[in-house]
């Protein structure tokens, strides 16, 4: 037994492997930095230009982006507002309500929604959903026109911000559902049983154990969905009837446009400083995404002591 334990420091293969994972991570940061740099450099001409040269001759660049930024956030929040409760409901249905044997199949069906490309969603929005909703909007505005969100006049074609939000919602439902489903399925049995043993009904068990446990995960799922909705281009361009306004009305023809949709609409015919202005709006969208994500992270971290991870 003389064989001494061989001495070697860190194994080269280990170092190479961990190095390459680090490299991949840094590459992502670098790519993102490159995109940010591109956006900033290309935006500068628009930021320093005489605002009169911008489309619609606004008083300043900020007056130019304001309606777009508003529309982006508005449409995406509406989409999230529709998609979020539905997704949580679907995820709960699959994780805690549906019989175990069919739950997986149901999950697959919802995943199929994620298989539909966005151009197809655009075509569907134009050809099917908008005409379908038109009479409904008519009815809403006729009967609830006094309510600010449904102020007349009504859109004659159904291509309103609400229609867009519905399409966006359908697009992000599978994203939010898939993630929150996985999270709900991982609720520790221990906590579920603790609630049941106290005499909780299924709903109460979900309120006590499942939802609080999944809180952080649900927030990230919602953020992923929101990110998708904020950045969606083609659906908005194809389906929305945009105007340069800041308006909360859901059923009219004059809807605020979104940044991504507006770039798609205006870029082809843009030239000169107009191109820079569009890219500058892209920069604003980038910043909006950053801010929203930071807020989400802040919200999640604030109650970290109470998180399910402990």
């Amino acid at each position, binding site marked *: 037994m003389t064989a001494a334990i061989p001495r070697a420091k860190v*194994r080269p*293969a*280990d170092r*190479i*492997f961990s190095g390459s*994972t*680090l490299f*991949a*991570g*840094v590459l*992502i*940061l670098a*790519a*993102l930095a*490159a*995109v940010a740099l*591109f956006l900033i450099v290309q935006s500068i001409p628009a930021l320093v230009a005489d605002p009169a040269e911008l489309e619609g001759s606004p008083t300043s660049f900020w007056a130019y982006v304001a309606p777009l930024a508003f529309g982006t956030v508005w449409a995406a929040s509406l989409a999230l507002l529709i998609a979020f409760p*539905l997704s949580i*409901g679907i995820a709960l*249905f699959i994780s805690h*309500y*549906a019989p175990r044997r069919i739950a997986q199949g149901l999950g*697959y069906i919802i*995943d199929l*929604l*994620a*298989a*539909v*490309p*966005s*151009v*197809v969603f655009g*075509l*569907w929005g134009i050809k099917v*959903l908008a005409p379908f909703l038109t*009479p409904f909007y008519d009815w809403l505005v006729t009967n609830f026109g006094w309510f600010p969100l449904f102020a007349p006049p009504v859109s004659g074609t159904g291509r309103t911000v609400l229609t867009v939000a519905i399409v966006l919602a*359908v697009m992000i*439902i599978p994203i939010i*559902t*898939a993630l929150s489903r996985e999270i709900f399925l991982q609720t520790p049995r221990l906590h579920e049983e603790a609630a049941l043993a106290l005499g909780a*009904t*299924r*709903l109460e068990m979900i309120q006590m154990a499942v939802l609080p446990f999944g809180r952080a995960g649900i927030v990230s799922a919602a953020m*992923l969905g929101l990110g998708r909705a904020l*950045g*969606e*281009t*083609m659906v908005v361009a194809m389906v929305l009837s945009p105007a340069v306004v800041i308006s909360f009305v859901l059923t009219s023809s004059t809807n605020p446009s979104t*940044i*991504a949709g507006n*770039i*798609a609409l205006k*870029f082809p015919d843009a030239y000169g400083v107009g191109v820079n202005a569009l890219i500058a709006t*892209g920069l604003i969208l*980038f910043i*909006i*995404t*950053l801010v929203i*994500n930071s807020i989400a*992270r802040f919200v999640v971290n604030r109650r970290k002591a109470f998180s399910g991870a402990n």
Partner: protein
Amino acid sequence: MTTTLAPATTGITNTLTASRLPKWATWAILGGSLAVAAGVFAIVQLSTGGDFSIVGAVFFGTVLFNIMLFALSYLVEGGRQARNRLVTSLVVTAFLIALIPLLSLVWTVLGNGIARFDPAFFSQSMRNVVGEGGGALHAIVGTLLITGTATLISVPVGLLTAIYLVEYGHGALARAITFFVDVMTGIPSIVAGLFAFAFFSLITGDPGIRFGFGGAVALSLLMTPVVVRSSEEMLKIVPNELREAAYALGVPKWLTILKVVIPTSIAGITTGVTLAIARVIGETAPLLLIAGFTSSMNYDLFNNRIMTLPVFVYTQYATPGTDVQAYLDRAWAAALTLVLIVMALNLIARLIAKFFSPKLGR
């Protein structure tokens, strides 16, 4: 050992029973509500002469059902059960609601797409085709090439990053990567296209550059964060005891990751990758900007314009000639093809998952 005491209370009401709605009550209320809603709508239609709205009837029937169920349950079973029932029915409703757009989409795409779903569509390009005829072979090939390349770029980068986050990274850098990956999911696709175009025209010095590889890079930008996110979650749920089992056998960390951790989570990772592919395979705007538009075949990712299915769908829809229907039919057939490709990918992913995933069950 056995009890000799006969239960003294047999025949007396069991105090543990609570008054409950009979099992059939739910269905009865559902049927009733739908019938009432249908009746009301029929009367309204008779009196105003409008169309009978099935959707409206179902909608109000469902609302009525929920209200009735809640009210009856509240009276008979008390507030807690009533809330429980209400949420149960809402959760089921949520699921059914999500099915509506899915069915409508499938129906629309199938109904419209089937007209041109013929052999010619899959064996011809649009080169020299005017009006009717032609096919989308060039677009199918382009989509497969570009998406495939994007996958080849994003999956290694995304997976390695996820491995870094789960297995190695703990400090500020890991937190920064996690945060910015989230931010990256919000890059609008058109900005990705603009970036790729600016980047490659700068590098090549060609101001009008259009080529497939650039499209793949733009798509990777959109795909990578999805891969990172989903793989990260999947790697996290590999039980630590498997890693420890491998370490204890004297397996170095990198081999443990490659041969134990990844195979164990391969099912989830493939699902994530398919989700990521589905996310980008339908992107139009960035590809128009950087991969361009052509009617001809091109198998070369590094030279010349290359057609893709979403661009095909979009341009057929947006700039038809006088024979509009022929263009629309092609657009829908291409949309159907696109959906089928993604579904096939999903299926393959599931098979892979099934084949490689941990074999449980005794």
